């Protein structure tokens, strides 16, 4: 089985890691991402893409539930690790790599997995369902019950063939989508898609209950899932605000599909964390800003995306630096990183609650960009996932 050993060795060189950040453990995530990049590994875009599931921090019960389901969705070979301090990252990576290399162990793991899919829980929490009196397993709430009757028979025929517990309108134990009137006057199906807490390039702990009509978000309700009550988060870092700004700029650039510049921003962030001289990082930031400003394609592609008018800003209590579109906020984010390096104080982060106002009507790509362009405060709700309603 020398061949299988060599295959494993080659595979582990390109390990993909799905990183979960619990609010409060940003520093640990930075360290993890740096370790991933140093090893030539890569961040996974979904559990299907992942070999390692890495949790940074101690999640509260609901966040832990989500992570638990994701673990069941990782195809394998798979390895799981939880780190709660920067110093623990490297050892965890070593262990994960060793576990992935062990083909016998991986085969045994694959063999013992259940032939039925893990069902997890729904994002809608019990507490939020009080009015409908729903338990976690009750998925036929009024909306679906009423739409089930006019459900498209063709759809249900096509969907059959999966799970073995098919009921009439619930193949695989999941109801069919129901319709709703749309702004275009057509009756189309809507999907309820929770965004977060585990999504690449997404603020830690944020859960957005979205209603999607096509690819447009028609309704969004934000919530924050926090850490476990007694957990001790990362100690505050010196220079945290500049690091945070660079991290957010990288996230925005990834979402805008510009991997090359996103890598630049991440490397600047890592330089800063490694204690590199502020002046050299500042020069790097200047170069990045200049390159971003020079790209008319980026400007054209982001212009007018996720706009916030000065009126809305005032209404929502936002700093007026948030006015404009995503491109404006990307440039401001980087200039803020620059001024933070020089010791300036930056505006305080804003509550995720404002998202409920800002998001409806936007296409999902624009939603992602807008969320990344705001400095959202998901750490303030550090308790255990209380609804931010």
């Amino acid at each position, binding site marked *: 089985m020398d061949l299988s050993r060599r295959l494993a060795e080659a595979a582990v060189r390109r390990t993909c890691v799905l990183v979960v950040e619990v609010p409060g453990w940003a520093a640990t995530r930075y360290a993890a991402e740096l370790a991933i990049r140093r090893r030539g590994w890569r961040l996974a875009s979904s559990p299907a893409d992942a070999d390692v599931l890495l949790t940074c921090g101690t999640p509260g019960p609901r966040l832990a539930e989500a992570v638990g389901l994701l673990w069941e969705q990782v195809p394998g070979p798979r390895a799981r690790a939880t780190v709660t301090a920067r110093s623990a990252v490297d050892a965890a990576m070593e262990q994960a790599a060793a576990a992935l290399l062990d083909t016998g162990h991986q085969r045994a793991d*694959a063999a013992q*997995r259940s032939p039925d899919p893990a069902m*997890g829980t729904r994002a809608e929490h019990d507490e939020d369902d009080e009015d409908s009196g729903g338990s976690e397993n009750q998925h036929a709430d009024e909306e679906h019950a009423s739409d089930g009757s006019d459900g498209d028979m063709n*759809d249900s025929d096509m969907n059959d063939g999966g799970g073995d517990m098919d009921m009439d309108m619930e193949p695989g134990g999941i109801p069919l989508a129901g319709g709703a009137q749309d702004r275009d006057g057509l009756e*189309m199906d809507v999907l309820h898609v*929770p965004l977060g807490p585990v*999504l690449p390039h997404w603020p830690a702990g944020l*859960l957005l209950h979205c209603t999607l009509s096509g690819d447009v978000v028609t309704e969004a309700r934000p919530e924050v899932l926090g850490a476990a009550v007694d957990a001790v988060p990362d100690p505050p870092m010196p220079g945290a605000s500049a690091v945070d700004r660079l991290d957010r700029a990288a996230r925005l650039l990834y979402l805008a599909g510009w991997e090359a510049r996103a890598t630049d921003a991440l490397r600047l962030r890592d330089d800063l964390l490694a204690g590199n001289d502020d002046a050299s990082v500042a020069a790097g930031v200047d170069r990045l800003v200049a390159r971003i400003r020079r790209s008319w394609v980026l400007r054209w592609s982001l212009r007018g995306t996720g706009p916030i008018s000065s009126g809305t800003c005032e209404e929502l209590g936002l700093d007026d630096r948030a006015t404009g579109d995503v491109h404006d906020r990307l440039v401001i984010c980087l200039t803020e990183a620059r001024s933070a390096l020089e010791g300036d104080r930056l505006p305080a982060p804003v509550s995720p609650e404002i998202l409920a106002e800002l998001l409806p009507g936007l296409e999902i790509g624009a939603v992602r960009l807008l969320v990344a362009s705001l400095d959202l405060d998901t750490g303030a709700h550090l308790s255990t996932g209380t609804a931010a309603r």
Partner: protein
Amino acid sequence: MFLSAAVMLALGVGGAATAYLVHRSTSVAASSLPTLPFLSGWRPPEHALSRFHARYYPLTLMFLAFDVEMLYMYPWATVVGRVGVSAVVEMFAFLIVLMVGVVWAWREGALQWT
């Protein structure tokens, strides 16, 4: 002439089948893992396969108009040289009419859907 295409098709399908066969022996498990779709760690409240609202549907109609036009365009390309000026005038008169349609659709907002 189409024999090569048929051979290529067989190669492609055969290649993919071989890839699946190889994967059966190299993968940690030959069977596929039954799983829920990725939804940030939650069970989907409903199936994703649904009547999806494709907001660009007015654009599809316009596309169809041009697509039918392509039926004429290809044969036209082979005879322009022989037929001469009249072929050019006729085809581009037709295309200009279509372009006027595009401009009208743009003013109606068909090119913007978010």
